[in-house]
């Protein structure tokens, strides 16, 4: 299998986060290589979102390091990490509620807008060109995520499934090398889940590496090449979907996994 020769894009070493006396994440080691789709699963409260927060710079780790694309990004701010190509989505539908769908995605183009401050103010000709480019690119992504119908709808008025899709669209607009999806299919029905799964597959085809947190086992098994399992902040297993499905510790942790 070619994956093993690829560059390690994300390396998490000994990552820990303590809240008071409690370890939300306990000495986590994790690697994601380029073009992989890796899954992170675990029961509620296992620390998956905390891991996301630590890697994306939203939380500072108590211990450990995060190395992205060869660079130690542990103490960087979220916007600096995003600049390096690591973008994440959120479990709750975190969107610019009073902006339209297309405006939300256009915001995602922030890092790649290419408009200088004063040029922006004076609305120069190159700026206007850039604005058109931003709109075009945003429209591409809106189409990619299947939200054409909702283009000018305010984000707060979108149905839940579309809000989740929009969240992914905004993250995509930032042109990530590495996309972290936090429960992308939460609250969705079967059709919507399949649409998202297919989108994620196509995102991967564009060469973007993906780390997904999910509760739905079917989605995970279908998408991921490799899965890591967290319980009480500790990684208890890691391997292919089949290996994980059969792992006793994992089954115990979930008290009867839904996996099929």
């Amino acid at each position, binding site marked *: 299998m070619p994956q093993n020769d690829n560059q390690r894009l994300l390396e998490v070493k000994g990552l820990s986060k303590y809240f008071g006396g409690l370890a939300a994440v306990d000495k986590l080691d994790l690697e994601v290589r380029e073009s992989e789709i890796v899954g992170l699963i675990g029961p509620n409260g296992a620390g998956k979102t905390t891991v996301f927060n630590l890697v994306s710079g939203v939380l500072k780790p108590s211990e450990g390091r995060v190395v992205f694309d060869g660079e130690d990004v542990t103490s960087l701010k979220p916007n600096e990490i995003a600049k390096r190509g690591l973008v994440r989505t*959120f479990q709750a539908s975190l969107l*610019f509620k009073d902006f339209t769908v297309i405006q939300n995605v256009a915001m995602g183009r922030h890092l790649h807008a290419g408009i200088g401050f004063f040029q922006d103010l004076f609305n120069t000709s190159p700026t206007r060109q850039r604005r058109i480019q931003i709109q075009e690119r945003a429209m591409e992504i809106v189409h990619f995520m299947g939200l054409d119908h909702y283009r000018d709808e305010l984000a707060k008025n979108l149905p839940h499934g579309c809000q989740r899709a929009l969240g992914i669209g905004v993250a995509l607009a930032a042109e990530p090398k590495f996309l972290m999806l936090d429960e992308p299919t939460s609250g969705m029905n079967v059709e919507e889940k399949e649409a998202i799964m297919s989108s994620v597959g196509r995102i991967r085809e564009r060469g973007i590496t993906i780390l997904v947190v999910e509760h739905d086992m079917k989605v995970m098994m279908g998408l991921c090449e490799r899965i890591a399992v967290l319980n009480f902040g500790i990684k208890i297993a890691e391997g292919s979907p089949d290996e994980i499905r059969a792992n006793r510790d994992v089954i115990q942790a979930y008290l009867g996994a839904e996996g099929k």
Partner: protein
Amino acid sequence: MKNNQSGWEKVILPVLVGLGFLLPLFVKDPYYFHILISIFIWSILTLGIRLILVVGHLNAAQATFMGMGAYTSGILAKNLGWSFWLGLPIAGVVAAILALAVGYPTLKIKGVYFVMVTFGLTEVFRHIWMMWTDLFGGPQGLLGIPRPNPIKLGVLTIAFTTKVPFYYLALILLLITVVVMQRLDRSRVGMTLRSIPQADLLAECIGVNVMGYKVLAFVIGAFFAGLAGSFWGHYFTYASPWDFTWSNSLYMLIYAVMGGPGSVWGPIVGCFVMLVVDELLRPIHQYMPIVLGSILILVLLFIPGGFITIPERVRGLVKR
């Protein structure tokens, strides 16, 4: 929003501005110029406070930035003999620098507490100005600030001996402020500023330097407050700490909210309406805060977008 604005802006606005410039031909009573000057300067201050308001912070220190501007330009002119025309931009820059120094640590703080920190700051500065009598003139303030130096344009000399030159200066300063604020609103920077109160964590994670943007809005608002303060000092020929209290900042906030923080016109409308009402009610001026507070609460309850949204609402009602 853009389309409606453009219509109004392309026709009515130039007419208003034109009238503004031609006014001294029709009106001679200095009283009216004084009122308009106050409205223009308060509009500049209110526009400044509006910028950081839409990013989500209530800035109680805007009056302090104004004061910094007034004292800076006043001291430069009175003690060092510098020209007002040099002092004016310097006042803006000094206020901006103060905002930069203060903004970074304080804007990190959650909204509620930010009000209190800026409030505390305002009080600290007020006490400094009142204590440091040698430099700032103490409780009576800095007296004897010279009027702006006359401008020579060929054979014409514009001396600032009547209210009319001040009126034009205030009008021009306001126009500059409006243009800058409008450009900001319509640019990507403006859109980014508006995105922050909606979802600052999301903004941060797609690469927006949220703190940087907040500081930017804060500093720009302070710059214009500094300009306004400098004008104020040279117009009244004195700068008193009592003009730069947190309660003055509060009035700026209220005008911004009542007029409507959604656009640059809201704060101006707010200032215009309330300052006119203030004048009309001068015989019973003790009742003014009651009127102001009541209108504020009524606006918040029933016209949440401010006065500026009234035409929209009326249109909406008529359509049904």
